């Protein structure tokens, strides 16, 4: 920012020298100070009227913010234009390098490079990423593995913090290191900051390696849920290190605090989630502002829980998860797309900015380097993570149906990246800590190590170890049917066994949801719709929109198998001429609609999302027409019975000739209708 001030001064000097009437003055509408200065203004010689005036101070803050964001996005754009680069180096590494360069540049000019302000980070940059993650959290794998995730998040993080803190304290006791002033509590505080797996870093790296769903949800879920542990440990040790002593009561209060922080955060999030769902029930006339409700309620949930020192991340996740099924049943398709794209956009920008600022902050310092301490921290980080994962998996596997293999364990351990949250927490430490600079340096080194070394090598390692990758999933209606079928089957068999298990309680929750909750939160009659039908309609809508956009008539499916092949003789053929007529009319209608779509005026208050629905109803009309044709046929029943016999005979292979004759007869009969 000051750089630009210098630039402006330079420019002014140049132009005044040339004599052009250009002035850098106070903002045009500012009050003119005291009477005295006003008088002196009049006594000055009359200057030429300023045709062009530069006033940087007026726009300074927003200008700088916009410039930083633009720089960040241009960098991101640049990476993806270089083909080989993005395949080898993960984006996060490149962005940190860019941050380092920018920071270096600013320092060379002689200005102070800006440090990642903790308040800016926690209140502006972090929430979009977490909301994006929480809103699109894949519920099924998450709930199936929630026990494992919680064990890793809570017990794993505790283990990391105490192991690292303890061993570092032991290290500091050694005379040769020169850090004998560091007490146990400070080390434990440091341990608790560095021990938590960071969701931003995990997201950034894992997004590019497309690992299988199980491992992904384990690491990612852990990074989200360990926030409560981090918050409690951080606050606890911060308080203790001021006081200096710890009593049993304090430890007990700490445990209670943990439960309050995590459950309280979830509760706050859930409350806002229900509010958002309830609000969305009434938005059918103001579709344009629907997405805003989602964003604002979630942000309020985050801020409210931060206000009470509860876990903001868990509140955001809870809010997103609770609100999603109901909101999606209420909002229009366009609002859904808007929400999706805005969330992705904001989280992308946030992530980019975070990494760049990390680089810049590294250059800014302040640094205190101690080889032994820093190197030991990095090594201990890895060691404690590996030990923790192996130990916990050994226990967890006794309770899991799908056991975690060695490969899975390796990726979970290796994917435990540290990131900007650790840095911000370190930065928040008050300056009274004499070790603050040392801690910051160590934290930055750990972050760099995990992001660069682990982040870059995880992709080739995944390939090398042949870890299972994410499957390309096209929504298949057969899979959907059978997933639901399996749910009911397993609930039923549990009932036969007399076992009140997993599926029994899930079924109870579903029923409660359907009878009470959905009634209040979903607009209109939609709450009665079972999931399968909703899925089917979504698929239909998607297909119809695709067809409309491509301008084709919904005639034949790309695989050239149509209804005829499944129920050949049941559809009585409309005469060729009539079919052509119908096609012509439909085609003309479709053209009309397309033109209408483009020339509709855009009104602030309503979006004509009836557009899509119109064309979809054209498609539906055609489908209903075919349905009616089927139903009208009287021969349907008789023909299908005949078919059965025919297919049996066909298998015997003797009556092929007879079959084709009978087919033709059947067709002729239908044609008349």
């Amino acid at each position, binding site marked *: 920012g000051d750089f630009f001030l210098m630039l402006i001064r330079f420019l002014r000097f140049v132009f005044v020298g040339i004599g052009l009437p250009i002035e850098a003055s106070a903002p045009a509408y500012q009050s003119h100070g005291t009477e005295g200065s006003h008088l002196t203004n009049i006594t000055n010689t009359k200057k030429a009227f300023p045709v062009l005036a530069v006033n940087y101070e007026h726009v300074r803050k927003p200008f700088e913010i916009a410039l930083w964001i633009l720089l960040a996005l241009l960098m991101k754009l640049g990476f993806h234009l270089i083909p080989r680069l993005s395949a080898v180096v993960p984006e996060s590494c490149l962005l940190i390098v860019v941050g380092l360069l920018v920071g270096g540049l600013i320092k060379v000019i002689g200005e102070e490079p800006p440090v990642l302000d903790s308040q800016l980070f926690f209140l502006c940059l972090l929430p979009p990423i977490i909301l994006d993650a929480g809103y699109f959290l894949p519920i099924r794998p998450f709930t199936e593995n929630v026990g494992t995730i919680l064990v890793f998040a809570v017990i794993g993080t505790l283990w990391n913090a105490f192991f690292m803190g303890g061993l570092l304290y032991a290290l500091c006791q050694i005379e040769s290191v020169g850090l004998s002033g560091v007490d146990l509590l400070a080390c434990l505080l440091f341990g608790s900051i560095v021990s938590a797996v960071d969701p931003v870093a995990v997201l950034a790296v894992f997004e590019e390696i497309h690992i299988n769903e199980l491992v992904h949800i384990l690491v990612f879920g852990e990074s989200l849920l360990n926030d409560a542990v981090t918050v409690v440990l951080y606050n606890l040790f911060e308080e203790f290190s001021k006081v200096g002593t710890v009593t049993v009561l304090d430890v007990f209060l700490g445990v209670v605090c943990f439960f309050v922080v995590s459950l309280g955060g979830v509760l706050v999030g859930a409350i806002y989630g229900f509010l958002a769902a309830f609000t969305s029930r009434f938005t059918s006339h103001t579709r344009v502002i629907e997405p805003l409700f989602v964003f604002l309620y979630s942000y309020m949930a985050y801020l409210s829980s931060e206000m009470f020192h509860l876990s903001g991340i868990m509140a955001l996740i809870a809010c997103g998860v609770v609100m999603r099924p109901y909101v999606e049943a209420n909002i229009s398709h366009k609002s859904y797309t808007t929400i999706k794209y805005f969330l992705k956009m904001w989280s992308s920008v946030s992530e980019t900015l975070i990494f760049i600022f990390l680089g810049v902050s590294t250059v800014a310092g302040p640094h205190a380097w101690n080889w032994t301490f820093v190197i030991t921290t990095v090594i201990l980080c890895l060691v404690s993570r590996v030990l923790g994962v192996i130990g916990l998996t050994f226990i967890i596997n006794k309770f899991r149906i799908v056991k975690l293999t060695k490969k899975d364990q390796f990726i979970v351990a290796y994917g435990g990246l540290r990131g900007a949250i650790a840095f911000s927490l370190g930065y928040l430490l008050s300056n009274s800590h004499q070790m603050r600079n040392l801690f910051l340096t160590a934290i930055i080194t750990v972050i760099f190590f995990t992001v660069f070394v682990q982040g870059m090598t995880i992709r080739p390692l995944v390939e090398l170890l042949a870890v299972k990758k994410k499957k390309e999933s096209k929504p298949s209606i057969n899979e959907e049917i059978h997933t639901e079928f399996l749910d009911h089957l397993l609930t039923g068999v549990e009932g036969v066994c007399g076992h009140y298990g997993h599926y029994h309680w899930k079924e109870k929750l579903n029923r409660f949801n359907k009878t009470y909750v959905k009634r209040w939160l979903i607009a209109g009659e939609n709450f009665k719709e079972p999931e399968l039908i909703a899925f089917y309609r979504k698929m239909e809508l998607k297909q119809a929109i695709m067809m409309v956009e491509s301008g084709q008539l919904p005639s034949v499916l790309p695989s050239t198998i149509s*209804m005829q092949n499944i129920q050949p003789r049941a559809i009585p053929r409309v005469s060729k001429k009539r079919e052509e007529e119908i096609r012509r009319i439909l085609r003309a209608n479709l053209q009309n609609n397309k033109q209408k779509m483009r020339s509709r005026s855009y009104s602030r208050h309503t979006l004509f999302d009836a557009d899509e629905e119109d064309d979809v109803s054209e498609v539906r009309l055609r489908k209903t027409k075919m349905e009616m044709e089927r139903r009208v046929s009287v021969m349907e029943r008789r023909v299908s019975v005949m078919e059965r016999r025919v297919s049996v005979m066909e298998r015997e292979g003797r009556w092929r000739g007879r079959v084709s004759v009978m087919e033709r007869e059947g067709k002729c009969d239908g044609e008349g209708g």
Partner: protein
Amino acid sequence: MGALQSLSDEPEYRELAEKTGFSFEQIGILHKRFKQLSHNEDMLRRADLDTIPDLACNPIRTQIIEAFFDKRNFHQNGDGTVEEISFEEFLVVMSHFRPPALNMTEDQREKVRREKLRFLFNMHDTDNDGTITLEEYRHVVEELLSRSGALGKETAKGIADAAMLEVASISIGHMEPDEFYEGITFEHFLKILKDIEIETKMNIRFLNMDTTTLCK
């Protein structure tokens, strides 16, 4: 079936354990449950399963109950249905829901997958002709949606038709307009559901069953 009267004998349990893969403990628990359901008789009837209150609100309860009395699930190459089953047959049906062991080779996993999918296939193929026809599939979807009233029937038809189309296009790919796709064979069924990883999903934890909390 008199030979299996006193199942507290070790050799009987051992034979069953070998056949079905359950542990002795699990067999003991399931036996207690069997006796409770059949009111201490040797044979279990449909009416006994009907009385289970948990099954009452399950949309596919008829199919579930039928599966227990379907001879195809007894691994004895039988056919048709029976009126009552013994404990051994009960156990064999239950063994379809055992989780796969930890270290299995790819072949063994494939075998387990086939077995479980065969169970599902038998549930759908009610007339036992080796294929699931459109009518049978429609019936399956209708039952699934049977709780949503009249609106369900038409949509069920649409869904079943779309699903059938999908199977045909995945398994066969291209058909002439006058060819007829008779029904889903077991091979096609395997193909369309191979991504669903059924060996990890179709399981029940038999370990921690507490018979004292069993229902009336």
